[in-house]
């Protein structure tokens, strides 16, 4: 670390004048000031707004709900703005406006230098801090969403009675869905994209460190409006919130729309940052054919997020406008269209699945070479696979709308594009199978996750091929079969890949080894519970059980009971895994800097990683997959043919 300071001082750059102590205003801000300022501004807005908005709403029968919605929306936005201002997000722009530049000491203070653990609770720009913040945040969201999943399965398991009020049940379905979607979008690119990726490419930090902090704290600010919906009537419409059902909803629905609008900003900022970092900040010598495949995966995922997330945001801005100023974008009574919403929503809705799956898959490719001591099979095919999925994923969204009656003949082209996406997706399977081919696996937990995920991906992929077919979809659409299919993709391939990535990078991120005995017990318990839950759910779907119901025919009893038992097993397994994470993080054995013998750059720096990652920036001279011994069956290497010539 002292070495990096020297590097900076030897550069003869004129430093701006230091105003006060390093950090300035940011010395006084933290999550505490953020919460206080956010809550105060929200309460003030609510108090003032209730004098203006609510009477405005009562003037007209059509507007009864509108005033309340506007009041709640204003309160939520006030919370977000107040929180962001309170934690210091506006300090940078204000400083610019005043003409004060950051000094080097200011930048180091903002990166968390010398603040100990407290830096995790501040507007800290260090990418490693942001990575840990994302890791904890995604685990909190997954825990919350998982708890709601347990409630859903409890209701569906006890067929003889209704456990929950139908309104509350519909609310937990919607909240489970959207919380899990948000959690899975961030679960790989958040922790590992932020913590690992800059080190992996040999950079000192992200390209835009302050935007990095902004992306995390925007996400943090977006969660309370979403969580509070359960107290304000709930999201009763599934995570898709089809209109006009959404406009009938109670005021809690506004929380969903505010959350999506803010979360889309967070994702956009994070995507720009990740892409720019990967493109411009790579170490000297890291040409595009030497970039680790995880970086390619994160770029692919960020491109999709950057291009398609705005569609989701627009769809919710229009929906919010329908709610708070009584426009009629989606209200057919006044000339709106429900299909407009469905199109805007699914324009993100489908690429979103690949936003989740691709970075997880790339992380598994990254780690499997280490545990097999073998190069990645066909790096170029992997890159082509990612590129193909990104390209085709943007032209498949209508397969969610086969049965909506919107442009019935669109089934033909979109069935074509949807089934074509299985070809680049197959590239990724080929790369993983080819890497397994003739390798001796080192059977640690990260490697075992690869096997688990390939199985889930095959099941999810093949059931996805059924659903891409319009005639089959005519039976399956809106049934439990769909639910089981996307859980195989999002949870089986997405979440379990994230677990593998967590187990792999845990030593680097926390400085301690994961207690693998406990963690594996938890993982395999969850894995087998998962198979039981969703295999049974496939059967329920084949039998014709619609999704998002809280009561059903006796014919579906057995499959639902099994599904509920499986869900509880998943819950137990996840709790065991969480226990392993928490205890290992606190008391685990200290990890060496390269416990797996990896060759990518993040394993070449010390653990814990110093503030600017590398004492001296590395220069890359080879590709990261330089494992393995000459293949006796392969083409005869140059050395072998020369050798006899020399001996003779």
């Amino acid at each position: 670390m002292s070495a990096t300071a020297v590097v900076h001082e030897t550069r003869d750059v004129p430093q701006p004048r230091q105003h006060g102590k390093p950090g300035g205003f940011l010395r006084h801000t933290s999550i505490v000031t953020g919460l206080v300022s956010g809550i105060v501004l929200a309460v003030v807005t609510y108090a003032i707004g209730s004098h203006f908005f609510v009477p405005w709403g009562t003037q007209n029968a059509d507007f009864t709900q509108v005033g309340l919605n506007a009041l709640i929306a204003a309160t939520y936005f006030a919370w977000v703005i107040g929180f962001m201002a309170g934690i210091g997000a506006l300090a940078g722009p204000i400083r610019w406006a005043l003409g004060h530049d950051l000094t080097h000491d200011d930048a180091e203070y903002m990166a968390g230098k010398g603040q100990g653990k407290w830096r995790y609770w501040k507007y800290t720009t260090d990418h490693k801090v942001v990575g840990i913040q994302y890791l904890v945040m995604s685990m909190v969201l997954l825990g919350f969403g998982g708890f709601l999943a347990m409630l859903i399965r409890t209701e569906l398991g006890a067929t003889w009675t209704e456990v929950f009020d139908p309104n509350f049940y519909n609310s937990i379905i919607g909240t489970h869905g959207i919380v899990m979607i948000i959690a899975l979008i961030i679960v790989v690119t958040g922790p590992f994209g932020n913590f690992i990726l800059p080190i992996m490419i040999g950079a000192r930090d992200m390209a835009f460190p302050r935007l990095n902090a902004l992306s995390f704290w925007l996400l943090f600010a977006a969660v309370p409006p979403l969580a509070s919906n359960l107290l304000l009537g709930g999201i009763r419409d599934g995570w898709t919130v089809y209109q006009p059902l959404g406009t009938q909803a109670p005021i809690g629905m506004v929380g969903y729309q505010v959350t999506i609008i803010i979360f889309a900003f967070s994702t956009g900022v994070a995507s720009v940052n990740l892409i720019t970092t990967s493109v411009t900040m790579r170490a000297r010598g890291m040409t595009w054919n030497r970039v680790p495949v995880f970086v390619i995966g994160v770029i692919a995922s960020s491109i999709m997020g950057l291009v398609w997330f705005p569609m989701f945001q627009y769809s919710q801005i229009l929906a919010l406008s329908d709610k708070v100023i009584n426009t009629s974008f989606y209200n057919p009574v006044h000339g709106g269209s429900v299909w407009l919403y469905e199109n805007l929503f699914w324009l993100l809705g489908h690429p979103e699945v690949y936003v989740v799956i691709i970075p997880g898959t790339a992380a598994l490719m990254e780690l499997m070479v280490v545990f097999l001591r073998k190069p990645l099979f066909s790096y170029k095919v992997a890159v082509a696979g990612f590129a193909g999925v990104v390209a085709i994923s943007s032209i498949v969204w209508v397969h969610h709308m086969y049965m909506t009656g919107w442009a019935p003949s669109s089934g033909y082209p979109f069935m074509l594009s949807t089934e074509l996406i299985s070809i680049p997706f197959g590239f990724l399977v080929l790369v993983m199978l080819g890497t397994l081919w003739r390798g001796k696996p080192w059977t640690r937990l990260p490697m075992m996750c690869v096997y688990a995920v390939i199985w889930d991906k095959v099941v999810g992929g093949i059931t996805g091929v059924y659903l891409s077919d319009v005639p089959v979809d005519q039976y399956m659409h809106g049934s439990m079969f769909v639910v089981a299919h996307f859980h195989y993709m999002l949870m089986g391939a997405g979440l379990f890949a994230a677990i593998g990535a967590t187990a792999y990078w845990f030593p680097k991120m926390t400085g301690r080894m994961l207690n693998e005995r406990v963690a594996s017990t938890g993982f395999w318990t969850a894995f087998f519970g998962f198979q039981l839950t969703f295999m049974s759910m496939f059967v329920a779907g084949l039998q014709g059980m619609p999704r998002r119901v809280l009561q059903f025919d006796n014919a579906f009893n057995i499959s639902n009971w099994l599904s509920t038992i499986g869900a509880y097993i998943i819950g137990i397994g996840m709790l065991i895994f969480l226990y392993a994470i928490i205890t290992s993080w606190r008391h685990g054995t200290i990890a060496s800097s390269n416990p797996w013998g990896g060759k990518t750059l993040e394993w070449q720096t010390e653990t814990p990683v110093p503030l600017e990652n590398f004492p001296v920036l590395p220069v890359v001279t080879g590709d990261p997959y330089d494992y393995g011994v000459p293949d006796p069956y392969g083409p005869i290497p140059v050395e072998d043919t020369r050798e006899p010539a020399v001996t003779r």
Partner: protein
Amino acid sequence: MSIDNPPTVEVDEPEEPTNRPRPDHELRAWLSRGYVRKILALTIVFVLVIVPIAWLVIHFMNLSGAPASAIMVEIERTMFVFTLVSSPLMAITLAILVYSLVGWGRVSGDEPPMQESPAIRTNGRAVVIWIAATSILAGFLVVWGLIELATITAYANGSTPPNQQPHAARAIDINVTGQQWLWTFQYPDQGNIQASTLVVPVNVPLYFNVTSKDVVHDFWVVELGVKIDANPGAITNTGVTPDKLGTFNIRCAELCGLHHAYMETQIKVVTQDQFDAWVRDMGGKRTV
């Protein structure tokens, strides 16, 4: 090959070329390797395990009743064919997974393993074969799907399967209206009678005009393979010709609020005489 062997190698050495398998022997040599044979054997075993699933899928779909229309027959046929066609790919993937865990050896322990695996960077032939195989498979599924979609669209419009006579009777229009949380069926051709249970004659094409009074519903006639959204402010169309007598399920397949789960009713497929009697009872006109 030519790039790997620089011209410094003396080509007039007689032993040199014989060390390399000739191209026509390569496949045989590859197949003679133990692990290749075992993986192929495992693949065959897995295919034999997966293929019965095709029947199992159909069995589950038929638990509440056998297909009651030509559309549903086509849907089940597609499920069946897709399961069969995708079984080899699934089987070979699983075979490699299983063999990788048990066949090529494993390493355990806390320290990174010292012995490295063969440095296989890529294999042009394997890549080409894989891409060709998956493309052919995907191409087959696309073509099958397009043909099937055209077929069920024709059935929905009242066509009959090629081995059957065209329907003698005129199609019956039925206006389906979804509202929170019930279905209403109106028969404009039969004097606008209304019912909450759908009663239809067998072997007569039905033509549904589906709409909604409030939010999006989805009209799903399970055993007949009919599904279409009921949208407010728009009419969507679909159709079917029931070819089996009996009572089947109608469900709502799109979350529509509080009592979505209870938004179900039944379709009674009866003979033409029973249907005419029912229409009389309901106070409507007889079908012409």
